């Protein structure tokens, strides 16, 4: 297959970027999108052009490193990670535009690579169960209904890629944040810190510059882990309750 690529190139965080056009020739249809870029990069190297930098690691859809906006959509057509996109999904001679994830809290580092440390800082603000190694009771001492554990797992499946924020017109990270709040808040082990967690995480999210949710559902549409937007509603409920409790001085 042959394609024309319009790729975002940017030499550094504080330099202006631009689109460059490169041909992608003789690409096997079973190649993944990233393998297609590997082939193009080998060609660029031969011509003395610096290869395009892009983030990738596991190439099996779980690490959340790959982060390309393809034809305007984070991770491209289909609901999966960029690395799990295969060239057979495209038509021969397609023009494909490739950009980094676009959201103000994700500054571009070089070419297609962005800095998503804001997500780590949100987790650091409360996305955990404060528990010491070695102090845990027997794992079966607290039964958790399968139905609850299953919903918690649905939320815990988030891979932290940031496509939700990149897809949202408001650059809202609420799908990401609500997935962690939902995962931990549903389980008995996460309940003691539930109120403090939601307040801290939502405030950190705001401080990092992510916008609010205004029900576009673009996040849900691109989420490779299939996190339902219903978790956002759950988080809003938890947040409202916790902030009301905070206002009246109830113990959190």
């Amino acid at each position, binding site marked *: 297959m042959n394609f024309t690529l319009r790729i975002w190139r940017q030499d550094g965080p504080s330099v202006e970027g631009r689109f460059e056009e490169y041909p992608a020739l003789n690409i096997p249809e079973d190649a993944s999108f990233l393998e297609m870029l590997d082939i193009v990069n080998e060609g660029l190297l031969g011509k003395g052009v610096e290869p395009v930098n892009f983030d990738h690691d596991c190439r099996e859809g779980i690490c959340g490193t790959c982060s390309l906006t393809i034809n305007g959509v984070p991770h491209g057509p289909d609901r999966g990670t960029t690395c799990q996109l295969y060239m057979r999904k495209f038509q021969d001679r397609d023009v494909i535009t490739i950009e980094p994830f676009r959201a103000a809290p994700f500054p571009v580092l070089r070419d297609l690579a962005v800095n998503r440390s804001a997500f780590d800082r949100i987790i650091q603000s409360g996305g955990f169960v404060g528990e010491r190694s*070695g102090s845990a009771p027997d794992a079966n001492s607290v039964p958790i209904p399968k139905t609850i554990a299953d919903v918690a797992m649905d939320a815990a499946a988030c891979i932290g890629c940031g496509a939700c924020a990149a897809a949202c017109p408001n650059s809202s990270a609420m799908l990401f944040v609500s997935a962690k709040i939902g995962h931990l808040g549903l389980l008995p082990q996460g309940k003691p810190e539930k109120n403090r967690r939601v307040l801290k995480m939502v405030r950190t999210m705001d401080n990092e510059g992510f916008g609010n949710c205004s029900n576009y559902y673009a996040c849900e549409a691109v989420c490779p882990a299939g996190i339902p937007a219903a978790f956002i509603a759950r988080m809003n409920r938890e947040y409202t309750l916790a902030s009301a409790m905070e206002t009246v001085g109830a113990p959190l």
Partner: protein
Amino acid sequence: MILDAKIPAGPLDQKWTSYKNHAKIINPSNKRKFKILIVGTGLAGASAAATLGEQGFQVECFCYQDSPRRAHSIAAQGGINAAKNYQNDGDSVYRLFYDTIKGGDFRAREANVHRLAEVSAAIIDQCVAQGVPFAREYGGLLANRSFGGAQVSRTFYARGQTGQQLLLGAYQEMSAQIAAGTVKMFPRTEMLDLVLVDGHAKGIVVRDMVTGEIRSHAGDAVLLCTGGYGNVFYLSTNATGCNVTATYRAHKRGALFANPCYTQIHPTCIPVSGDYQSKLTLMSESLRNDGRVWVPKRREDCGKAPHEIPEDARDYFLERKYPSYGNLAPRDISSRSAKEACDDGRGVGPGGLGVYLDFAEAIGRLGQKVVEERYGNLFEMYGNITGENAYQRPMRIYPAVHYTMGGLWVDYNLMSNVPGLHVLGEANFSDHGANRLGASALMQGLADGYFVIPYTIGTYLSAHFGKKKPEVTDAPFRDAEKAVRDRTQRLLAVKGSRSVDSFHRELGLIIWNQCGMARSQSGLEEALDRIPKLREEFWTNVNVLGKGETFNQSLEKAGRVSDFLEFGELMCRDALARNESCGGHFRTEYQTPEGEALRDDENYSYVAAWKYEGENAAPTCVKEPLVYEHVEQSTRSYK
């Protein structure tokens, strides 16, 4: 040089208890006076950082990924073993210990493995308390599944994403410590050298992968939790960034590299489809619980669609050869059997390099819904990559490099022969012998980080209380930084005509063909002839564009491949020196008439720990004899 594993005295099941009872403890107010550098944030690194941070040590933690949450432990699918005996099916610490020793083909250290089995149960408690959403029964208790190489159900799992959930658990606990200020995290930072001060590991030299800055960090001890070296094969199930650089540079600074030839080929991966391929995708071994592995009995049937091949024309070769374990035979044995079937001309799919993994019987027995619930995401992944629906036609699978049992030599304290340098998880050699059982890697990574190193680190640190602290301005740091800068400049200065990837691919193919599933003296000798030549060409003809002082992925890759080009040779040397077959190391000259691995306990019951002797000198082998006091080194049979 004599290697002392420092195994505590006393009966096997009392060693760890007695160690803990007598271990040196550093009092809480003194812990903060020690700084520990941890490289890698997978299960071992993240759990160690979280736990040591909690205890009050100053921790600095480094990873090459953009976030510690993305370390490759995240990709482990199937599960984690623990001797909980929740199924009341006869499991025990001893049984997990024995299965692991036997699975490792009697090439692991008894005391380490027993400790691993002992702490396994606490890992599950710990993870549940962190909110890891393990699979549960309707009654609310934890569910288990079976895994290869065991006859009890002791594997805990979270759908097909167990590694992800365990890693996120550890990452979250580490995040809490980052917020508390005990752990300082440096993502997109790669370790490029180890710094020794008076023979002790006291620091590392790193490259900031965003700015290209090369700088040093000093500490009181260094923990390498940097995973395995499977990417020496180029194609493997590892993430593309996984590399041997940290452990290999430590090796060049004096740390012994143990058993590098012990590599694991995982039986259930999606077959290679073309030479553009950048990685191989694993399908969890748990699929073998319900899937049946077969190839056509007749070569002429290989081209037919699977449903056109009647039951009596199929060879369910694992069930035929190993009736008691069947499709759950351990990984090395299953992989080799698949290779034999394909070598016999009965492989299926492109190039004849594949065997079927068939779920028709399970779907008939359980219904599609149950199969979907157990393996849904794996079927989806398979469909996405191959374009085939595995509910309707059997999957095609083929073995691929997955895990490396070899690693830096460590004693019972997880400390290498370089004082202060500790090695955890896949990066060390200690627990899996010549073959690792499924669901044991997660167990080892977390055991080392949560429950072993917090006790054993004190043994080293307590002797250094009150001594002068190393400074990054000291000469050893300056010298190491200069060496790293020079190497970077050398890579950029070659300006040849071949890409880094093309060298990596060529190296991978040599290693796969000569040091993969089957090895022979002549093949290994050929590899040992070709690798140095390839390395020489690399240093005269590689083409790395760009600068050292910027974000430059080509440069990162070039550094890693240059280490693989040295390490690959070490691996082949080790394989050539081990004149026996054991676990993942199968030498074609040493097999039984039925084609099973033929061990030589009399001559090779030892750990081969290699010492670096300089750029163009052959490494020397230091042997640690393996003494089995509690189990008998029997012939490993799964029939």
